[in-house]
C-alpha cells in the first residue's frame, strides 16, 4: 500500500497517510489529476487557500525501467484557470518513489506572509521546517547551499524568485543528475501555487529506502528489456541516434524546412538564422569549445536516450544546461535572436529565476511585438529578463506570461490558448498540433498530444501536416499521452514504442509487473481516455466551454509565410475532438 504525505500549510503540519484504496494502481498524472479533481473546488482562486498542489512519481518511477524518472505535479493553474499537470525528469522522482510515497499533497496557505518552509523527507519520516536558505536568490546558489547542508545525494524540488512572487509563468524546479537546478515542471504557473503556500523546498533523501515494490519481477524484467531494446534500436532514440547526438534542437532545422518554425512571435514559419541556433550548431559549439560542453547528457539516472546537453561559454566553462528545442526556439527564432550565447544566457536566467522557458520566450516575443525591444535584440531581452529578479513592476508583468504582457502592451498577436503561450510548432503549418493546442485541457501544450510525430517526423502512423481533418488523431494522441504521463516514462519513449510493437508491449508489461495488473493496449487507451475526460470535467466545472477550445483569431486572418497557410480548420471540427 502506497503512502501519501499531507502537508497543511495553515497549521504547518506534515503527516503520512495511507493512499486511499480508490487510487491504488494510479501514479503520475492519473494520480495528481485524481486528487486535484476529488479535492479541489474548480472555482477556487489558484493562489488561495482552497487550491492544492500535488506531486506524484509515475507507476514505474524508481525502478530500473529505462527513462522512468518522471514526476508529475498538479493543481488548478493560475495561468489557465483550469486543471494543470506538468512533469519533469529528475532524480528527485527516483528518490521519492522508493521511500514508498505515491504522492505529496500540499494544502492551505500560511497565516504568516513573507516566511518560507521546507518539507524534508527521509526513511524516518517527514518534517516541515522554516526555510532560511536562498530566499530571493538565484536557484543555482540556493541548490549549492542546500547540497552542502543536506549532502550531495538528496533530491530537491523548489521555487525561484518568480514563484516567491506568485507569478503565473513560475514553474517548479527539480535537480538534474549532477545537482543543477535545471529540470522543470514548467508550464502553467505551478511555481506560483507553491509560492502561495509558502513552500520553498522539498528535500528528499532516499538513503535506506526499501525500493519500489514490484509484484511480478519476471514480467517486469521481460518488459524492461523489450522496451530498452526498442529504445536502443529506433533511429530517433538509440545511442548515436538523432536525439542523443543533436539533442531535441535537431528539430530546429527540420521545422524550419517544414515552414513550421514560429518566427518573430508567430509572424513567419521560417527563420533565416535557424542554422546558427540549431542542434548541429549546439553540438559544434560543445566540440569546439570543449571543457564542460557536452551532448548526450541524461536528466535522470535511468535515462538511456540522453537528449540533454551542457552548453559552454567560449572559454569552455559551463554556461547552462540544457538548451533543448523549446527553450532554444522560444528565445531564438521566436524572438528573432540568432545568437546561441544570448539564447543560453536567457535560458540560464529563466532557470535561475524558476520560470517556464516556453512561456518566457513567448512573453519576450510579445514584449518585442509591443515595442519593449526590437526583434533580434538579445542584449535588451537579457536586460528585460533581469527585471524579474529585481521584482520591478515590469518584471512582474513579464513573469505573468504572454497574455498578461500582451494586454498590458496592447498587442493583438498573442499566440496563446487558454492563457498559455504556444510552444515551438506553428499550427497553421501543422494542423494536428493546432487541434491539440486548442482542445487540450492544459492550454497550448505540445506534450499533451505530440501529433508532430506522425505529421512531420513520420512516427506512429501517417498524416499530412496540412490536412485539416485531425480530430481523431489529436484525441488518440492526447489519450495515449495521458497514460504515458501516468507511468512515469519520458514522453520520448513514444518515438520508439509507436513504431516498434515489442517496445509498446514491453512498456505495458513493466506497468503490469509493478502493479500486478493484466492491462493490455486497450486498457492504455481506456485509462488515457478516463484521464482526459476527468480533466475536461474539472475545466467544465471551472467555467470552460467549447469557445475556449479555439485558436487565436490572428491565425485565421494572417497567412503564414512561406507556406502562406492560415488556420483554416472550422471550429466545428475542433468540437469533434471530445465528442
Amino acid at each position, binding site marked *: 500500500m502506497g503512502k501519501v504525505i499531507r502537508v497543511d500549510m495553515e497549521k504547518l503540519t506534515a503527516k503520512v497517510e495511507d493512499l486511499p484504496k480508490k487510487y491504488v494502481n494510479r501514479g503520475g498524472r492519473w494520480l495528481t489529476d485524481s486528487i486535484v479533481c476529488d479535492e479541489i473546488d474548480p472555482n477556487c482562486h489558484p493562489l488561495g487557500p482552497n487550491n492544492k498542489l500535488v506531486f506524484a512519481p509515475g507507476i514505474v518511477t524508481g525502478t530500473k525501467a529505462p527513462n522512468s524518472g518522471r514526476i508529475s505535479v498538479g493543481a488548478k493553474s493560475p495561468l489557465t484557470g483550469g486543471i494543470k499537470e506538468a512533469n519533469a525528469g529528475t532524480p528527485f522522482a527516483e528518490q521519492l518513489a522508493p521511500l514508498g510515497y505515491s504522492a505529496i499533497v500540499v494544502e492551505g496557505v500560511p497565516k504568516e506572509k513573507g516566511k518560507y518552509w521546507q518539507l524534508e523527507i527521509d526513511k524516518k519520516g517527514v518534517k516541515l521546517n522554516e526555510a532560511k536558505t536562498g530566499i530571493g536568490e538565484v536557484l543555482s546558489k540556493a541548490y549549492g547551499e542546500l547540497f552542502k547542508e543536506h549532502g550531495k545525494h538528496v533530491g530537491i524540488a523548489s521555487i525561484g524568485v518568480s514563484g516567491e512572487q506568485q507569478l503565473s509563468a513560475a514553474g517548479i524546479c527539480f535537480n538534474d543528475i549532477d545537482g543543477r537546478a535545471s529540470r522543470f515542471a514548467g508550464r502553467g504557473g505551478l511555481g506560483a501555487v507553491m509560492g502561495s503556500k509558502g513552500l520553498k523546498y522539498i528535500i528528499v533523501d532516499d538513503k535506506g529506502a526499501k525500493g519500489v515494490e514490484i509484484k511480478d519481477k519476471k514480467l517486469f524484467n521481460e518488459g524492461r528489456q523489450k522496451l530498452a531494446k526498442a529504445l536502443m534500436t*529506433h*533511429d*530517433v532514440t538509440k545511442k*548515436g*541516434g*538523432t536525439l542523443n*547526438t*543533436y539533442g531535441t534542437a*535537431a*528539430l530546429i*532545422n*527540420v521545422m*524550419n*524546412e*517544414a*515552414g*513550421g518554425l514560429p518566427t518573430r512571435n508567430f509572424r513567419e*514559419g*521560417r527563420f533565416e538564422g535557424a*542554422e*546558427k541556433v*540549431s542542434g*548541429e*550548431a549546439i*553540438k*559544434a559549439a560543445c566540440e569546439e569549445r570543449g571543457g564542460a560542453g557536452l551532448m548526450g547528457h541524461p536528466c535522470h539516472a535511468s535515462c538511456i536516450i540522453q537528449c540533454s546537453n551542457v552548453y559552454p561559454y567560449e572559454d569552455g566553462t559551463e554556461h547552462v544546461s540544457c538548451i533543448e528545442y523549446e527553450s532554444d526556439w522560444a528565445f531564438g527564432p521566436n524572438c528573432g535572436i540568432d545568437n546561441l550565447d544570448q539564447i543560453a544566457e536567457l535560458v540560464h536566467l529563466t532557470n535561475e529565476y524558476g520560470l517556464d522557458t516556453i512561456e518566457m520566450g513567448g512573453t519576450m516575443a510579445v514584449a518585442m511585438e509591443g515595442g519593449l525591444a526590437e526583434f533580434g535584440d538579445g542584449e535588451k531581452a537579457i536586460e528585460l529578463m533581469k527585471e524579474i529578479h529585481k521584482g520591478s513592476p515590469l518584471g512582474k508583468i513579464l513573469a505573468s506570461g504572454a497574455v498578461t504582457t500582451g494586454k498590458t502592451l496592447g498587442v493583438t498577436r498573442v499566440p496563446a490558448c487558454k492563457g498559455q503561450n504556444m510552444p515551438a510548432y506553428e499550427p497553421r*503549418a501543422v494542423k494536428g498540433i493546432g487541434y491539440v493546442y486548442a482542445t487540450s485541457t492544459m492550454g497550448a501544450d505540445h506534450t499533451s498530444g505530440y501529433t508532430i510525430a*506522425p505529421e*512531420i*517526423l*513520420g*512516427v506512429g*502512423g*501517417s*498524416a*499530412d*501536416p*496540412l490536412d485539416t481533418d485531425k480530430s481523431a488523431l489529436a484525441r488518440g494522441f492526447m489519450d495515449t499521452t495521458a497514460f504515458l504521463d501516468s507511468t512515469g516514462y519520458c514522453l520520448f519513449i513514444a*518515438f520508439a514504442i509507436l*513504431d516498434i510493437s515489442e517496445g509498446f508491449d514491453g512498456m505495458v508489461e513493466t506497468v503490469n509487473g509493478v502493479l500486478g495488473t493484466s492491462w493490455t493496449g486497450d486498457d492504455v487507451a481506456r485509462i488515457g481516455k478516463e484521464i482526459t475526460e476527468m480533466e475536461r470535467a474539472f475545466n467544465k466545472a471551472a467555467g470552460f466551454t467549447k469557445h475556449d477550445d479555439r485558436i487565436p483569431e490572428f491565425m485565421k486572418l494572417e497567412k503564414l509565410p*512561406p*507556406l502562406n497557410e492560415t488556420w483554416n480548420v472550422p471550429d466545428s471540427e475542433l468540437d469533434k475532438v471530445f465528442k
Partner: protein
Amino acid sequence: MMKIEIHLYGRLRRFTDNPDPGKPSVIKIEVPGGTTINGALEKAGVPTDEVGTNIFLNGRYSSLDRVIDEGGRLGVFPDDMNLLYKWHFDKE
C-alpha cells in the same frame, strides 16, 4: 529549366562549399521540368544512399520520387539525422 536551391544538413553538408553547421549549406542548380527529387540530388552530386527520410520541397514533406513541378527550395537531411523510422508515411 527550373532553378532550385538544395539545402543540405548534417554530414550531407560536405557536398557543398560550406561544412559549417552554423551557416546554410546550399547547392544551386537548374533542372528540367519533370525532374524528381532523386534526379535533382543525383545532378547535384549528393548520393541518395546517404539521404534520410526527412525531405522537404518548399516546406512540403516529400519522398525522393516526387516530381519537382516548380522551382524553389529543397531541404534534405542525412540518414543519421532521421526523425523518421519507416517509410510508412504518405508523401507527396
